[in-house]
């Protein structure tokens, strides 16, 4: 995937590091051998730039290298190789966030010999120069794309090597187990006094730990991509009011007329730090007594079902003033225990509200009564008890990591099975070796020397 990029680091690259949108400030990033010299050609005070060391900020005017026309007042951040993010000479340009201004600076950079950076190319160069390893490179993608503060926290954990630490702990444990087996392969039966039994418990517990870590992928993904939460329910049950309550702004059109939301609306929200995409669907109008949705809104409703299918959680709103119809009763009975459904008993503020049935959550979309409890329930449902709300929790979020962890866990299971079917030690050892090399792909290789070191320090061997 990255191999298509140019390996030639003498090519100068430039890219906008902040969104191309009007804002107070924007940051452009440049990198490559000679970047500082080329930027100096676009700067009002080239001398100061040349004499600035690594990590300095310089204020001045950015100008076109040929016409010398001033473009913007900027601050330049200077990084000299091998420091800085990419490990190359690099300049970060802090300018005003006006779209024509950003465009003119980019034009000037092109004139000075920079080309547009490919997606991820700065990180790729950092990797190429050994500034970051593979898991860290993945984590950078994360920070850049993270949807909420908590997701940012997870990514930061990994970048500082916490995930590596956890995986490393399990790897060390397996190496310990391996040394117990390998010593029997390296020394004859008469050279070591007694065989140590294969520590099955240890293998199993390492396997469980790795499986657990692999399973955090689901949660990691929620934080990374955002959970998909759908609001569904009969027309006029109060879906849009609830949607707005989440948004705390009048985004959806709220009216008393049934079926105002003909299609669905979506918006990013944050539930206690977890990013989520909230969908407000078209209402299901049950034409009593048959209870089938009417044809007119077929398209919107069809889409609504599609959204429900792909969602992580469905908030089904029941109208507390009218109670449940036949279909809703069936739905409620069928999904009361289903973690994907959360039933809300709306309009508790109304005088005509009926008592909330067991298994549903009372709420008033108007007064927000019961709302915080719902937010808590949403979190519990989505995270399935997998996570405390602390940033310290380690979780994985790339498929590659999950696959390698699963591979390692599977090899450990094979090892257990080999032990149980009385396979010889060398076969069991080869399964453990497979597990270690899968983990090695995540955090760096384990060599035979690592295992021999362990043997020599733990066993009295040698004739």
């Amino acid at each position, binding site marked *: 995937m990255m191999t298509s990029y140019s*390996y030639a680091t003498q090519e100068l690259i430039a890219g906008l590091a902040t969104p191309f949108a009007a804002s107070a400030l924007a940051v452009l990033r440049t990198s490559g051998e000679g970047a500082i010299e080329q930027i100096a050609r676009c700067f009002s005070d080239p001398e100061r730039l040349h004499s600035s060391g690594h990590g300095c900020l310089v204020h001045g005017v950015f100008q076109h290298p040929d016409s010398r026309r001033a473009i913007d007042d900027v601050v330049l951040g200077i990084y000299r190789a091998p420091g800085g993010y990419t490990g190359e000479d690099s300049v970060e340009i802090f300018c005003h966030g006006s779209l024509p201004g950003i465009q003119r600076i980019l034009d000037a950079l092109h004139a000075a010999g920079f080309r547009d950076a490919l997606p991820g190319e700065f990180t790729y160069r950092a990797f190429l120069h050994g500034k970051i390893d593979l898991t860290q490179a993945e984590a950078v993608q994360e920070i850049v794309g993270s949807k909420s503060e908590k997701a940012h926290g997870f990514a930061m954990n990994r970048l500082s090597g916490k995930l590596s630490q956890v995986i490393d702990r399990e790897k060390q444990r397996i190496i310990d187990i391996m040394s117990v087996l390998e010593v029997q392969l*390296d020394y004859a039966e008469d050279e070591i006094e007694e065989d140590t039994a294969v520590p099955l418990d240890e293998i199993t517990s390492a396997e469980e730990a790795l499986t657990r870590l692999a399973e955090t992928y689901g949660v990691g993904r929620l934080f990374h991509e955002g959970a998909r939460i759908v609001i569904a329910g009969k027309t006029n049950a109060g879906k849009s009011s609830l949607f707005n309550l989440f948004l705390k702004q009048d985004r959806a059109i709220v009216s008393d007329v049934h079926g105002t939301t003909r299609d669905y609306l979506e918006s990013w929200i944050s539930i206690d730090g977890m990013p989520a995409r909230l969908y407000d669907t078209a209402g299901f109008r049950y034409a009593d007594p048959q209870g089938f949705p009417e044809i007119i809104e077929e398209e919107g409703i069809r889409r609504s079902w599609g959204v429900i299918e792909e969602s992580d959680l469905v908030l089904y709103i029941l109208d507390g003033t009218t109670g449940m119809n036949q279909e809703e009763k069936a739905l409620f009975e069928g999904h009361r225990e289903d973690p994907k459904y959360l039933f809300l008993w709306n309009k508790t503020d109304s005088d005509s509200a009926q008592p909330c049935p067991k298994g549903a959550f009372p709420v008033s979309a108007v007064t927000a009564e019961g709302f915080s409890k719902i937010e808590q329930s949403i979190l519990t449902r989505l995270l399935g008890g997998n996570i405390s709300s602390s940033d310290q929790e380690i979780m994985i979020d790339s498929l590659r990591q999950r696959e390698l962890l699963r591979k390692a866990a599977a090899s450990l299971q094979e090892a257990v099975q080999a032990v149980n079917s009385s396979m*010889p030690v*060398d076969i069991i*050892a080869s399964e453990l070796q497979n597990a270690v090399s899968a983990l090695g792909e995540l955090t760096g290789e384990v060599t035979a020397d690592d295992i021999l070191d362990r*043997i020599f320090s733990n066993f009295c061997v040698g004739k």
Partner: protein
Amino acid sequence: MDIDAIVVGGGHAGIEAALALSKLQFSTLLITQNLDAVGRLSCNPAVGGLSKGNIVREIDALGGMMGKLIDETMIQFRILNRRRGPAVQAPRAQADKFSYHRLAKETLESQPYLQVFQDTVTDLILDETHSRAAGVKTERGRCIPSRCVVLTTGTFMEGKIFIGNHWASSGRLGEPAAVGLGTRLRELGFRMLRMKTGTPARVRRSSIDLEKLEEQPGDEQMQSFSFSGKLPERPSVSCYIAFTNTRTHQIIQENLHSSPLYGGKITGIGPRYCPSIEDKVVRFPQRDRHQIFVEPEGLGTEEMYLNGISTSLPEDVQEAFIRSIDGFAQAQIMRPGYAVEYDVIDPTQLYPTLETKQIEYLFSAGQTNGTSGYEEAACQGLLAGINAGLKLQGKEPLILSRAQAYAGVLIDDLVTKGTNEPYRMFTSRAEYRLNLRHDSADQRLLERAYQLGMQDEQAVERLREKIQKIDEIKHLLREQKLPGGKTWYQHLKSPEISIQQLFSQNSDLPAYDEAYLRQAELDVKYEGYIKRQDMQVKRFEKLERIRIPRDFDYFSVEGLSAEGREKLHALRPVSVGQASRISGVRNSDVAVLMVRLGR
């Protein structure tokens, strides 16, 4: 007669190197300090063992001598680790030291194209550019020109032995060191290391109360290491097992100050896997006994080797602690234990052909390269000899891969990672050990040796017959069925069914060599694992196949890390695979090389 090749040293590496070069019909001269010490087993009187037994059989498949020497001189044979699995069992034999040495000398003497000469080499003759070996100079002032030189100096290069306070300039007890050559190599700019190894006392058999020791007999049937060999048929002698005790340890503890190891006299690095008894007592204080193998040095001698208690303590302390061992109260020491320290060429200065990078046509093998063990030395000697010959012939070198032979693992480890202790082969060093079984060494290597001129027609015929027989057996396994309809093949997959059990079901079947049956059995039983390993090997070989030219300019490659560039430049790996195993070379460097070298 003009000399094509000079081999310096007559140990296990030197013997193989000299025989290989002369087999390839190069006029070869082996120079040794002492003709009466050729092929001497200076440490324990045994050949083979775990992974080492595999190496002996690899040497044999490649046309080397070690397997034949031990077959003719073994006085006990055992297959080790039978129940620990197919990949790790290996043959080991006790040798009659004196017969072994004598047969080695006779073999050298009867080899066409080979001369043997007693002298001490002190310097190399180089060409005017100082970058090519052109012969040797000896202690007695002789200059002998040649087209290539193989160094197999063992523990003799600037060797020094220690017993307590005593030290002497020797390579073995009673044999003077070769002084001068190590210093000369340093002057030529080689990075030299100091290493240390040790040996225990030899004790008179009739002074030991063998009744108090546990007897360890060999296997009933001796087997041959050589693939060409007849089964050796001679009476087997026993070894014995004794144990140190807390009294022994106390004596050692109290006298540690007089050990040159702990007194700081020895600076060389010793092997962790074969610690002296001083080391064992210090490092494992919680153990109240250590095992000792009491091994006969031969049939015509009373000397018994005390394997497990190598030491350099003063002689009176040695006597005291040995006599504290049950069964040894009256023990008479015939030779004391000692430590020896010697010069080693840092092996990362070698190509995988074992030629030095700095001086062309200079090869080096064995303990000179930082290994320990007869088998490790012999396989290097053989490959250095073959590669020197191939170079003189202008042919492609023979580089064995890690998936092909333990010898390949050994040499790759040495030249790629170097070593900071005497390097011994271990099963766990080989990633693909299911493929490296001792019984398949001929299938892995013999054809290649034949192509190079190291094996004769007969040997290849034998191999073809073996392969055919094994195929026949597997065919039978697929055809024969047990009541219930499942084939023997399917039954054999379960751990508790043996091939003998199956073949005993039908007496009409032809009789097969037990070794062939065994091999077919392992192939079937572990088929799944072997297949998986084969896939891993395929992946591994991808990188091995991307060759790097010798004069490749790493400084012209953009994108290499500074450290990686430096390491690659210094080490000059022959393939991207080897490059990937150099410490300090990063994944990204490997990626860059792959792109640059046309992947």
